[in-house]
């Protein structure tokens, strides 16, 4: 994966090192390496916080086991809230606090400074530490040290450090240790298509192929413990809903009824799925399926298309799309029997595909207007609509678990690409696959430990 930042200088020299390491690493990856991702900040860097991330000191044989500053700089830059200085612009390379001359960094307009140390302690054991400084005050404001790290965990450690830096400066938890799931579609020269469901780190690294089919795959959904993915596959000739355990690859087909089987979503306790089924009636309705008891309960009975259900954080109500009022709008219904659906969106003729923000205050939707489909947030109390994106065929919005960003699918030059926008609409990022189309992104939850 390569990272290109258009309007901001980024760690040039360490980026080259990072790309070199990636070139080797990608040759060893599972076939999902073809869905390598390019991340580009396209808009909105003016308000980003200026930060200097200095290459870590290294004690060990050969080149550094990992370019910590490169990973941290990429993470912070990709969030849109930070503008890391290019390595070439770093006025000096301190690796200990005693070596820092804060005045030098003030001249560069760096608000924050990160230094660190990496050392080899044994055959496969490393020690890593960082310190974060407020340049203006000349004070350390965060630090962390980890020892006994195996080589395979070094990247995750760098993401941990980036999370802590992010949270210290912004007050918001970082999402650099999370994963995303998405579908990649490749069109072969003979006209056939190959669909893959892929899980990767939030920065596009470590892409793993979860499922593959010549028939469409769509609507991936994470279990709250990040251990399973539910998804829709047409591999049997009709739509079916599958739940797959990521660590083992084992999967179960949970719904293969006549008609439509689609739009799975896990309940907050991970025990139930909402499903859209049409069964014999041909009318799409929301159902809940208890994954343990297999008890199926129908939640909507309207003659309209009722689909795209997701759970509220307290598990007591469900948001969904219905066109019972003529065109698609968002509704909410309680999970207890007898609950009546209430309409939530009243602005615009097309609001579909709801996703609830982690704080429960907003839903992200596909908002259609004048033949343009864009991502908008809608305040659940109050109904205010804010259009965040500026494509024409934007779809599949998904909140990061810190609520600060929304990843979504869009088109560029007739290719499916992923993009993200900060929830305040200010910073835009485009994430394109090196080859083929990528679509249907879903941001995974915070990791458990």
């Amino acid at each position: 994966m390569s990272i290109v930042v258009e309007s901001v200088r980024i760690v040039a020299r360490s980026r080259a090192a990072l790309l070199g390491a990636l070139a080797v690493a990608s040759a060893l990856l599972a076939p999902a390496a073809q869905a390598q991702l390019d991340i580009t900040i396209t808009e909105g860097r003016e308000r980003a916080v200026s930060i200097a991330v200095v290459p870590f000191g290294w004690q060990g044989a050969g080149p550094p086991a990992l370019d910590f500053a490169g990973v941290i700089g990429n993470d912070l830059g990709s969030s849109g809230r930070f503008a890391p200085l290019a390595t070439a612009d770093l006025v000096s390379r301190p690796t200990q606090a005693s070596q820092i001359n804060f005045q030098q960094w003030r001249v560069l307009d760096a608000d924050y400074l990160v230094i660190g140390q990496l050392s080899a302690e044994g055959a496969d054991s490393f020690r890593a530490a960082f310190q974060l400084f407020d340049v203006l005050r000349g004070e350390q404001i965060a630090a962390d040290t980890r020892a006994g790290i195996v080589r395979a965990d070094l990247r995750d450690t760098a993401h941990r450090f980036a999370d802590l830096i992010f949270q210290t400066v912004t007050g918001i938890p970082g999402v650099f240790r999370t994963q995303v799931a998405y579908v990649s579609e490749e069109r072969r020269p003979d006209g056939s298509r190959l669909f893959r469901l892929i899980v990767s780190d939030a920065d596009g690294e470590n892409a793993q192929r979860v499922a593959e089919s010549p028939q469409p795959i769509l609507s991936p959904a994470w279990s709250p413990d990040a251990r399973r993915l539910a998804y829709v596959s047409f591999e049997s000739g009709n739509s079916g809903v599958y739940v797959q355990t990521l660590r083992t690859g084992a999967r179960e087909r949970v719904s293969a009824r006549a008609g439509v089987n689609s739009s799975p979503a896990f309940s907050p306790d991970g025990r139930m799925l909402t499903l859209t089924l049409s069964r014999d009636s041909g009318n799409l309705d929301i159902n809940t399926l208890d994954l343990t008891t297999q008890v199926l309960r129908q939640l909507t009975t309207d003659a309209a298309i009722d689909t795209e259900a997701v759970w509220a954080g307290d598990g007591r109500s469900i948001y969904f799309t219905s066109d019972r009022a003529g065109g698609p709008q968002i509704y909410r219904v309680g999970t207890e029997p007898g609950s009546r659906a209430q309409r939530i969106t009243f602005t615009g003729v097309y609001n579909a595909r709801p996703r609830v923000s982690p704080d429960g205050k907003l839903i992200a939707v596909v908002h259609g207007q004048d033949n343009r489909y864009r991502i908008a947030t809608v305040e659940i109390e109050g109904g205010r609509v804010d259009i965040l994106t500026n494509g024409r065929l934007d779809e599949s919005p998904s909140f990061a678990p810190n609520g600060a960003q929304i990843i979504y699918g869009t088109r560029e030059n007739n290719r499916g690409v992923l993009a993200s926008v900060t929830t305040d609409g200010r910073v835009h990022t485009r994430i394109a696959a090196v080859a083929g189309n990528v679509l249907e992104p879903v941001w995974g939850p915070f990791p458990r430990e």
Partner: protein
Amino acid sequence: MKSSVLMLLTLSAFSLAGCMRDNTLPEGANGDVGPDPGATTSALGAGGNSGASVTAAEAERIRLMSLLVVYFDYDQADIRPEFSAQLQAHGQFLAQNANAALRLEGHADERGSREYNIGLGERRAQAVRRVLMLQGAQATQLTTVSYGEERPAQTGTDEESWRLNRRVELSYR
């Protein structure tokens, strides 16, 4: 490209000729079928016995049976009047041939949300199903599948491509 739709028509017409040979069409349903494309003509000519004549009504019915796609307006599942005769022919055929089975594959254009588009595809397939049953087709002869926007006939991002993607395809099993 429209070629994929035409190819579908041709291939389906071939298999249709297979079904029909055993049933109600008189021997000699050959190339002399009126003003329609050569694709259909050659398909039916394969098994025919040249020399026998076909009534104009029968020729029209054969032509209608070769039409295997129904198109829809944006966000609509209403059957437009121009498809009534075609569906009437298929419905009557199913009513008269209890062994015939038809799969109705519903599709939508790419705009908007994917899962909602699965819903639109199913609604369209169901609309065609209802019309066929009104003509006497049995429920057991008809299966519906929706692909939403996932299997477009055209990959362009323009009105014409979208128009050709809003469809139900009739596929005899």
